[in-house]
């Protein structure tokens, strides 16, 4: 009987110890999280290798299928290039003009002091509840917690924790993610949230729609820049559907993100160039 009691005591002690560790590591930038380096540093080369192999296998399989499609696409693209070149010429004029005007008005560009850090996705979340992934850039590359992560199409998410050579990124379709956003057309402030039910379809939801707000299917949603994590003006996605719960006062919308989360391979981490020591600042987006 004494043994049984002894075992219970050990179990209780271990449980309490783990609970304390959970509590401590839940804090932002907690030192305890550095222990995860033990596993991430050891596994990341293997993950990278498997990822590389997967890409090669996929590439080889595609190679033979694609030849015909590629030559057709090539023709179409050549035409498109000439069209675009014309447009670029026009736009570069506008850029110059825009620059002059901005300088005259002294508007600070949120992208001007930001550095783009390319990264590969090397691992996905292990379970079915969350939508996070691991990238092959870490503290050693200058990644900091709460940096925005994007692709050429739009917003992906933000960095939630960093290890030596890897970082974990939470996507905007994860349930724990909230992004302060604007409707591009009307400049109304809204929130884009992840949702467990929509996550598997790669969608997220838009909340905080006021009754008098003009929102329709196809409207573009972009980041608002409020909260200090995501820079202003990054495309999030388009409104796919506006749903009402009980009446017009209680509406929410389904957003189709510009990024295809199922086929995500490479991303960019946005690191600010000058205020790297500023990363402990907690934004309101981070709740």
């Amino acid at each position, binding site marked *: 009987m004494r043994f049984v009691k002894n075992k219970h005591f050990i*179990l209780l002690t*271990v*449980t309490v110890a*783990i*609970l304390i*560790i*959970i509590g401590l*590591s*839940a804090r932002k930038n907690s030192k*305890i*999280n550095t*222990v*995860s380096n*033990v*596993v*991430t540093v050891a*596994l990341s080369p*293997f*993950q990278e290798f*498997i*990822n590389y192999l*997967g890409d090669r296998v996929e590439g080889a399989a595609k190679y033979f299928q694609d030849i015909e499609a590629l030559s057709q696409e090539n023709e179409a693209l050549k035409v498109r290039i000439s069209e675009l070149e014309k447009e670029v010429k026009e736009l570069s004029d506008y850029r110059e003009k825009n620059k002059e005007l901005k300088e005259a008005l002294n508007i600070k560009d949120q992208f001007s002091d930001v550095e783009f850090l390319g990264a590969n996705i*090397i*691992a*996905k*979340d*292990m*379970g*079915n*509840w*969350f939508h*996070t992934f*691991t990238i092959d850039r870490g503290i050693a590359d200058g990644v900091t917690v709460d940096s925005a992560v994007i692709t050429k199409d739009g917003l992906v998410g933000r960095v*939630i*924790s960093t290890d030596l050579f890897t970082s*974990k990124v939470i996507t905007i379709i994860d349930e*724990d993610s909230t992004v302060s956003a604007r409707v591009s057309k009307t400049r109304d402030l809204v929130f884009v949230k992840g949702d*467990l*039910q929509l996550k*598997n379809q790669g969608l997220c939801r838009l909340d905080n729609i006021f009754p008098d707000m003009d929102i329709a299917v196809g409207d573009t949603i972009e980041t608002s820049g409020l909260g200090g994590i995501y820079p202003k003006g990054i495309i999030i996605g388009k409104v796919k559907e506006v749903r009402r719960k009980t009446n017009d006062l209680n509406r929410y919308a389904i957003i189709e993100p510009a990024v295809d989360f199922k086929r995500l391979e490479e991303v960019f981490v946005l690191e600010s160039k000058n205020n790297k020591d500023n990363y402990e600042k907690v934004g309101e987006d981070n709740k």
Partner: protein
Amino acid sequence: MRAKPVRVKIISYAALIFIIALIQSTVLESISIFNIKPNLLLIFIISVALLGSNIEGAVTGFLCGLTQDMLSGRVIGFYALLGLYLGLGIALINKRLYKENVLVAIFTTFVSSIIYEFAVYFFVNVFKGSLELIFPFRYIILPEAVYNSAVSIVIFLIVLKINHWSEELERLSRRY
């Protein structure tokens, strides 16, 4: 000489955890059905706990959970604690089961997956005030439990083989 069988078990379990964690975090996405992937580490905990002692179950559960925490968790210790109790719980009841039967392993995996994933969902969402039961059960927990049960055949047989191997070694070492 006497410690060798135990050492064989520890080394092979450690290697298995390493390989499973690697597979779980990389290529498993490509074999997901209805966007649901099996939880190999969970199946491994269940298999080991079903065949081993209380300590074995608890320690393996803890270490598998810790690996998951480090690789893809938000906090350190959450999955470790759940894994610890899962491993211990199954190891405590395994004396009442005919444990080397694959069907028993499949059934245990099915039931434990449901309990475990409900626990994960509950503890993650309990403070957010939005606990739903039907959607997560119907679309995440149940498919995962079914998938886990199917995959458990493979992992259980591997763990069973390791167990037989270390028992064999133990018998050999006792003879001398």
